[in-house]
């Protein structure tokens, strides 16, 4: 910024712009006040937000699925998103991943220039947002191995997939992932033949293969046994830090076991936001959700 452009902003629009601008040397400008701790405005320089959602609204035929949602995710955090049915959790995921376009508001990844609401699903995936669906969605006709292969991070254009072969590094990566999700013995099985829990695991594995910055995980433990649930919790906890993870889940016990910070959505708005214990104690939350 040049020193000549230091016209102070005016509050009243009617006042004419001064013709003679006052030149103030940069050094004479007071430091801008540090943002208050509870400020909701993202300040990338100070707090490393990886993804933030600003004033997001979506309506379907007049029904406000999201109504001015603002939310920030810090790099490497594990966030749980809870709320009763119809609170707008899945819609929020849809908007972040580009499946649904919002009426107003924006979703930003890393920088203000990356407004995800203006990009296609695959471009968003390429930038580093991965998603696991509510119902496990794997490529039924492909083997477990091929499912992971397809999800691998890398060039995904028509020509490169037509001529490129698996590299040794890719093979190793796939084997590693299969080991992490415990499906090594099933590598050659068609994914459609896997048990429900295994499909959930495979989908998480595919997310890992994509190596995204932000993982959106919709109901990861639906239909899982208790032991499987514990392994999932363990896995998600181990992934936090390296990735930023958002988990949407109904199972409160599971949420309690993994959550550091919880955001409660209700009727398309953020109702409460904070550590699990604090949120649980919030009377409004108790009323709409936990008290049920």
């Amino acid at each position, binding site marked *: 910024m040049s020193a000549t452009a230091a016209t102070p902003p005016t509050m009243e629009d009617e006042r004419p712009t001064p013709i003679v601008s006052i030149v103030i040397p940069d050094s004479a400008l007071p430091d801008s006040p540090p943002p208050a701790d509870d400020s909701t405005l993202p300040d990338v320089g100070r707090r490393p937000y990886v993804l933030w959602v600003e004033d997001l609204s979506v309506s379907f035929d007049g029904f406000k699925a999201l109504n001015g949602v603002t939310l920030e995710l810090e790099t490497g955090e594990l966030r749980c998103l809870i709320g009763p049915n119809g609170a707008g959790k899945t819609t929020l995921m849809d908007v972040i991943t580009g499946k649904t376009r919002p009426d107003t508001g924006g979703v930003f990844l890393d920088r203000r220039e990356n407004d995800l609401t203006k990009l296609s699903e695959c471009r968003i*995936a390429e930038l580093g947002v991965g998603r696991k669906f509510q119902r496990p969605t794997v490529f039924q006709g*492909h083997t477990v191995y091929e499912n992971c292969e397809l999800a691998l991070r890398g060039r995904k*254009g*028509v020509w490169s*997939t*037509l001529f490129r072969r698996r590299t040794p590094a890719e093979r190793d990566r796939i084997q590693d992932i299969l080991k992490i999700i415990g499906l090594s013995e099933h590598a050659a099985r068609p994914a459609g033949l896997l048990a429900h829990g295994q499909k959930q695991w495979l989908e998480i594995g595919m997310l890992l293969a994509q190596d995204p910055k932000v993982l959106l995980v919709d109901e990861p433990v639906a239909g899982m046994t208790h032991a499987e649930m514990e392994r999932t919790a363990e896995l998600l906890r181990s992934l936090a830090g390296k990735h930023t993870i958002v988990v949407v889940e109904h199972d409160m016990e599971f949420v309690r076991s993994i959550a550091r910070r919880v955001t409660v959505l209700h009727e398309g708005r953020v109702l409460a936001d904070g550590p699990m214990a604090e949120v649980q104690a919030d009377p409004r939350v108790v009323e709409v959700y936990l008290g049920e």
Partner: protein
Amino acid sequence: MLTRLREMHSPLAWGLIAGAALLIAALPAIGLPEYLVPQFGKFLCFGIAALAMDLVWGYAGILSLGHGLFFALGGYSMGMYLMRSIAGEGVYRSALPDFMVFLDWKTLPWYWSGFQSFGFAAVMSLVVPGVLAFVFGWFAFRSRIRGVYFSIVTQALTYAATLLFFQNATGFGGNNGLTDFKRILGAPLHDPTTRRTLYLVSAIALLGTYFVCRFVVTSRLGRVLTAVRDAELKTRFCGYESTHYKVFVWTLSAMLCGLAGALYVPQVGIINPSEMQPSNSIEMAIWVAVGGRGTLLGAVLGAWLVVGGKSWLTAAIPSAWLYALGALFVIVTLFLPRGLVGLGAKLRPAVDMVIARLRRPAKAT
């Protein structure tokens, strides 16, 4: 390269395919009657079209009911060359094709220029269907038109083209189409050697097309295509621009169909708008359904069975053909969702058991 070939097929399968290809290529030399050579050449062209159809339908899940259009466009490109190569030998001894003289046209329309060259016509037989498919596919897939809606639009497209080509003013000979061809590259079309050469070229083209299709479906791109077929949204969330993939395979398929049409026309000696009729495109879908979707070889087999059955039945009981075709489609859809190849796979355990039983007493004695 060798490992890539091995990914495409096991050495045994490659051997079988090479054997079958040699047998097909040698048929005219080992006793296929002369009059049947163009007939069998036609079958080979249908085989190419069936592969093209299976590529989009079987692997990418895009059911086209308009592939007859691409086939016919390839055919018309070749027909235009054949037409121009007999300039001055028509009934009216004019440089223009007879039907243009009949319409009292004095000069060739601009879109007929260049077709005096065989090379140009051959390239156009791929480019014209390719460009049409690319433009059509781009808009259709970008607008996320899929499933039965897409099929209906393709059907409408080929029907519209049929009506257009029926018009005399379009400049492709109206409902008579292009015919009375005499020679290709200087060789007389009725000469047995020319016919055998065309047959051989068709056989090579079929093998080449099979190779291309097999290469595509065994590549990572092929796996992406099947993934798009099974869960398109998921592939988009994995970072694949599914529209590009669909446009690619759709365009490639249309071009292969154009190739089939270009080889077909010199062997049958005529191309007219009836080749574009919706029923022709539907028949192509039936070939693939009968043979087995997503199997390539099954599609070729299906095409030969259906076309063979048609040749036989239309001679024996002409009115029964359409009923038989409809019944076949219903039976296959209801009882053989994976076509004849699927039936083969289903019967395999039973066959193995029978073989094992036959062997056991032999061993005992």
